[in-house]
C-alpha cells in the first residue's frame, strides 16, 4: 500500500470515529467502542514497556490500579475535578515506577517478570490491609471506594479516544526516535547496545515510566467510569494478562499491533462472553496457543513479513 493512501485512510477513520456519537448509534455500541479505545490504550502502554524492550512486565496492572485509587480518592474525598485527578494519577504512577523500575530493570528475563508480578500483588495486598493494620479509614480495604456519578458514555467515548490517540502517537514517536532505536537495540542485544554507548538502564526506566504514566491515567478514567472500585477489581492479574495477549495477538513492538489485538479480542469477548463465559476464555487460550505456534510475530508482524517477501 502506498504511504499516502494509508495515511489518508487513517485520517478518514479518525474523523469517522470522532463523529460516531452524533450518528444516533445505540448506547451499547458507543460503550463497546469506548471500551475498545481504553483497551488499546492499556495494551499500547504495555507494548511500550515490554514490546519494545523485550522485558515482559507481568505487573503492569499495578500502575493501572494505583491510578484508579488516586483518582477515586481525589474525587470522592477531595472533590478534585476529573481531569486534574487523572493527571495526578498518571504522575503518581510514574513516580512510583521510578523506584520500582530502577532495581527491577536490572533483572533479566523471567526474574523481571516475577518481580513485577510480586510488585502488583503486593500493592493489592497493601491496599487491602492498610486500613485494618494502621487503624484508619483511608483506602477502605476490601469494601472499595464509591466515586461521584459520572457523565454519560459519550463523555468516556471522547476521553477514551483522546487517551488512545495520545498513546498511539507516543508509540509512533518512540518508534522513530533515537530513544526507540535504543529500546530496539536493548531488545535485540542488550550487551552490544551497552557497548555501543547506549545507557540501557536509563532508556528502559524511561520506557517503563512512560507506560506507567498512561496506565495510571487510564486507571483513573476507568475508575470514574465504573464509579465503584475494589482492590480485587483494579489489581486483577487478568488485566495484565489481557494486555499481554492483545499485544501478542496484534504484534509486539509494532505501533498498530495493540490496535488490532485489542479491537479483535474485545469484540470476540463481547460476542461470546455473555452467552458462553467459559467458552470465551477457552477460545482465548486456543488463540494464544495457535498464535504462538504458528505466527509468533502476531497479526501485524506476520502481515508485514508477508508483504515484504
Amino acid at each position, binding site marked *: 500500500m502506498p504511504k499516502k493512501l494509508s495515511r489518508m485512510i487513517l485520517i478518514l477513520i479518525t474523523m469517522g470515529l470522532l463523529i460516531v456519537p452524533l450518528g444516533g448509534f445505540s448506547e451499547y455500541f458507543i460503550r463497546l467502542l469506548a471500551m475498545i479505545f481504553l483497551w488499546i490504550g492499556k495494551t499500547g502502554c504495555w507494548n511500550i514497556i515490554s514490546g519494545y524492550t523485550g522485558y515482559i512486565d507481568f505487573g503492569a496492572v499495578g500502575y493501572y490500579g494505583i491510578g484508579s485509587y488516586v483518582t477515586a480518592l481525589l474525587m470522592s474525598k477531595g472533590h478534585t475535578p476529573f481531569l486534574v485527578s487523572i493527571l495526578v494519577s498518571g504522575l503518581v504512577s510514574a513516580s512510583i515506577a521510578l523506584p520500582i523500575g530502577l532495581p527491577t530493570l536490572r533483572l533479566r528475563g523471567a526474574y523481571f517478570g516475577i518481580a513485577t508480578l510480586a510488585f502488583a500483588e503486593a500493592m493489592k495486598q497493601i491496599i487491602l490491609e492498610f486500613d485494618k493494620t494502621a487503624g484508619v479509614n483511608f483506602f477502605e480495604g476490601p469494601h472499595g471506594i464509591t466515586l461521584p456519578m459520572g457523565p454519560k458514555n459519550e463523555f468516556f467515548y471522547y476521553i477514551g479516544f483522546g487517551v488512545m490517540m495520545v498513546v498511539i502517537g507516543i508509540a509512533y514517536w518512540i518508534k522513530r526516535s533515537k530513544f526507540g532505536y535504543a529500546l530496539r537495540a536493548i531488545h535485540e542485544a542488550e550487551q552490544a547496545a551497552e557497548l555501543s554507548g547506549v545507557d540501557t538502564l536509563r532508556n528502559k526506566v524511561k520506557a517503563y515510566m512512560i507506560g506507567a504514566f498512561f496506565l495510571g491515567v487510564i486507571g483513573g478514567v476507568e475508575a470514574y467510569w465504573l464509579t465503584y472500585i475494589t482492590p480485587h477489581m483494579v489489581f486483577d492479574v487478568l488485566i495484565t494478562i489481557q494486555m499481554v495477549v492483545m499485544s501478542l495477538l496484534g504484534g509486539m513492538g509494532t505501533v498498530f499491533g495493540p490496535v488490532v489485538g485489542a479491537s479483535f479480542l474485545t469484540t470476540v469477548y463481547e460476542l461470546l462472553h455473555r452467552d458462553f463465559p467459559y467458552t470465551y476464555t477457552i477460545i482465548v487460550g486456543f488463540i*494464544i496457543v495457535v498464535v504462538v505456534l504458528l505466527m509468533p510475530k502476531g497479526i501485524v508482524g506476520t502481515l508485514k513479513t508477508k508483504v515484504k517477501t
Partner: protein
Amino acid sequence: MLLFLQSLMNGILLGGIYASYSAGFSLIFGVMGVINIFHGEMVMLGAFLTYWIFTLFHIDPFLTVPLSFFSLFIFGYLIQRFVINRVVEAPPMISYLLTFGIHLIIAYTALGIWTADFRTVTTGYSGMNANIGGIIIPYARLATFVLALIVVAGLYFLLYKTEIGRAIQATAQDKEIARLMGVNIRQIYAITFGVGAAITGMAGSLISTYFIIFPQMGLSYTIIAFCVVVLGGMGYIPGALWGGLILGVVQSLTATYLNAGLSGALTFILLFIMLILRPTGILGKGIVE
C-alpha cells in the same frame, strides 16, 4: 511459648506442602528454562483425580497417589513432546505465553465440566491429629511433609545416580554439547516435564485431603511456586524445600502475631526484595539468566 511453637510447627508443615508442589516447577525451569504458568493446573488435576476416585469408588486418597503420578507423567510427557518442544528454543517470552494459553484452556475447561463448586475430600481420618506436648500435628499434613522430603530425595537420586539423570543434567548444563554426545534432547525434555508433572500431581492428590479444591485454584498455586522457587534458588531442587520452609514459617508467624491478611503482602514483599538482592536464592545456588 506454646503458641509460638505451634505456629512454627504449622509453618513447617505448610512449608512442606509448598515444597511438595514447587519442586517440579524448579526442575522444569532448571532444565528447560520454561516458566510453566499452568503448573498450578497440574496440582488441580491431581487433586480432582483423587476427588473423583474417592467420591465414585471410595478408594482411599493415599492409594490414588501412584495413579496421579502416572497419569500426570503421561500428561506432562505428551504436552512437552507435542506442544512445548516446538518453542523450547524460542525466546523465553514465547514459552510463558504458550503455557499461559494452556493454563486458560485447562482451567476453564475444568470449570465448564466441574463447575465452580468448592469441594473437599473428607475421609474418616481427616480431622485426626497427633498431640505432642500440646503441639497439634495433623496427620495428613505430616504425610505431605514426608512426601516433600521423599520427592526431593527421589529427584536427587534420579538426577545424580541414574543414566537418565546424567542426561538431564547434561542437557540442562549445555544442550548443544549434550546433543553432540548423543543425548536425544527432545526426549529428555519430555521426560523431565513428565517427572515434574508427576510429582506435582502427587502433591495435588494429598492437598485434596485438607484444602478446598476448585477448578480455578491453579493460578494461586503457580504464584506460590514462583515465590518458593525464587527464595530457594531457581532450578536448584533442594532449594524448593528451603524456600517452602521459609515461606511457610514467615506466613504462619505473621498470621499468628500480626494479621492473616498481611502474610500475603509480606510474601510478595519478601519475593520482591529477594529478587533484587539475591536472585540466586537463599543458598546462592540458583540459576541466573
